[in-house]
């Protein structure tokens, strides 16, 4: 055995290119995965925001409906504004 004759051949450029391409593809894949995860987090946050805004919207809708209810309006009209229902003949139809 003549191990002393073992030599390391210079890697061919094609092989280097393959290795580089594989490494690049791997890095790209990892980067894309990270990006997708990041977008997933953003999407999740946006989704939560949408839900929160929708909930706020429906809360406001409830509040508006409560304030607009004839019972509330009647109470405000009488207590705060001193209004009362018209007496007979007070309603005059416009021509």
């Amino acid at each position, binding site marked *: 055995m003549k191990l002393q004759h073992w030599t390391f051949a210079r890697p061919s450029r094609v092989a280097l290119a393959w290795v580089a391409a594989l490494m690049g593809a791997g890095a790209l894949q990892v980067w894309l995965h990270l990006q997708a995860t990041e977008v997933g987090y953003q999407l*999740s946050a946006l989704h939560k925001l949408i839900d929160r805004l929708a909930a706020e919207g429906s809360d406001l809708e*409830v509040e508006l409906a409560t304030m607009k209810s004839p019972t509330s309006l009647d109470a405000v009209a009488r207590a705060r504004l001193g209004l009362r229902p018209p007496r*007979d003949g007070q*309603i005059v*139809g416009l*021509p």
Partner: protein
Amino acid sequence: MNAHQRRPVRLGTASVVIGAVLAVVALRLCQLALVDGHRLASLARRQHSETEQLTPLRGAILDRFGDPLALSTRADSVFVRPSKLPGDGSEAAVARELRISRGQWLRKVSSTSPFTWIKRQANPVDLDRLRALNIPGVGTVPEVRRFYPHGRMAASVIGFAGIDSQGLEGIELAYDGYLRGPTGEMAVERDARGRKFLAAGIDGDRARQGANVVLTLDSSLQYAAESELDRRVAETRAKGGLVLMLDPRRGEILALAQNPSFDPNARGGVDAEVRRNRAVADAYEPGSTMKALLASAALDQRAVSASDRFFCEDGHYRYAGHTIHDHHGYGVLSVAQILQVSSNVGATKIAERLGAKSYYQALRSFGLGSATGVDLAGEQAGILRPLSAWKSIDLATASFGHGLAVTPLQLAAAYGAIANGGILMRPYIVKRVVDDGGEVVLENQPTVLRRVVSQATARQVTQILEGVVAPKGTAPLASVPGLKIAGKTGTAQKVDFVHGGYSRGRIASFVGYFPADDPQLVMLVIIDEPQTTIWGGTAAAPVFRSIALAAAERLSIPVEPPVDDELAASVQQQGNSAPATATSPPASFLGLSLREALERARALGVTVDVVGSGYVVHQDPRSGAPMGADQPIRLQLDASGEPLG
């Protein structure tokens, strides 16, 4: 062998070792990927992927103008997994933040169940504080909370939904399938810290909001009905009451108020008796309100004519072994007068002329004894025994509304038929159902059930019923000056279901419609066991009047009060001589407010055209100038009130 010579050997050895290790790794990789790959991938997915259930918002219930009567909001509920609680006492803060007692908290966390609700639909402020604690084993789940912004308004119609967003009563129950909406799913991933992220985007099966149910109710009319009813029930110290309004031309129910009522937002402990929709679920003996149906049938079948006169036996009439009584003794009365004064003896004699079979068939035709088909849960058919089961006295008692029972809706619908020229419409309360995309998925249309009496008969009966609200009728308190009202009072004894026979309690009612020459609204008012007065004309008619005033304004039905004689006289005295005629010079309107100008025009019997607002600054023709026949006076108004030219 020197160092230089040993180097290739070491390199070779290292290569072999590395190659062997790589081979082992490659083999293991193959094993993991190819042999166990499927199982391991599934395990991994289970660990970091999950499907989140999306609860849809329950659809809204709206009145005919889109005013919300029931809405949903998101409200998170708090749960606990007892086995995952840290056990260091920090979780006691949860009870504090959610304002639940320590005993309650301990009971819940000592449960053997792996999952226990702590507080359903908690307050958002409490939830924020709770989340800040970040205690393991305590979590929240988004849920839907039902809210009724008008409180007790139309509560018996709308019903209510349960804590799990399921309809339990009323429209909420009857239209639950539409209101609930389909649940959705969304795939979410969890990272190492347990944070969720949407790796698969938001293309999942999104939850869709339930469909909105649009009712025929008008919340303004409903409010007027409820407030007037409540006031009258309190005034008469009655057990309760009911007001039902419907459009006779379409069959749409515009208002349905009942007292006592309840707030569906806080319905805990409310008796089922109070929650029941008595307009469709309860039948009562209608009393004299039945006489209008009797007169309609008798006139339509020409058994009597409006001018026929009957001797009313001075209030005591022996019939089939019984004595029929009137409240007052009457002599000879026409058909119209019999209804006007509500004579039981007269009604019995009309019924005798009509015959039991014809009367029974007419009552069936008016819809008595069968459900109206309204889209409300729990409708009863009332009680109208088959003709074969009638005894001799039944014809007489049925003529003045005893021995049979109707639901308030049946009676209102029957009067609706008279108001609608003899055509009976199917009553309904849901106008349409619209999904969250705006598409109409269900629409109710007015449905003609049948013609009950001829148009001429209906007109004739209407004229007769106008006499009931006249000063000599039983219900002058229902009259509204300037509005033609047709109606009928009823005062019926209540059936004693416990001891049999009749109890001491009375049901006072008034049912009518207006304007009599073109009816747009039928209204039934029932006062249950009034104490201060028992008569339909005094207990129920005033409610009709008050609501009719509000309804006329709401529905733009013109109410033309008669000319105030004092005003007309003062206008004439102000130097403009006699009321304007075809060619007489017009009075001066200058400087008057719009209200004053219109009142003066009405007093003088002239028509005016109005432009602008404020005070009259110009009129054409001018005061004293000649004017043509039927020529309107053009009034120009301005806020300044300074006369022009």
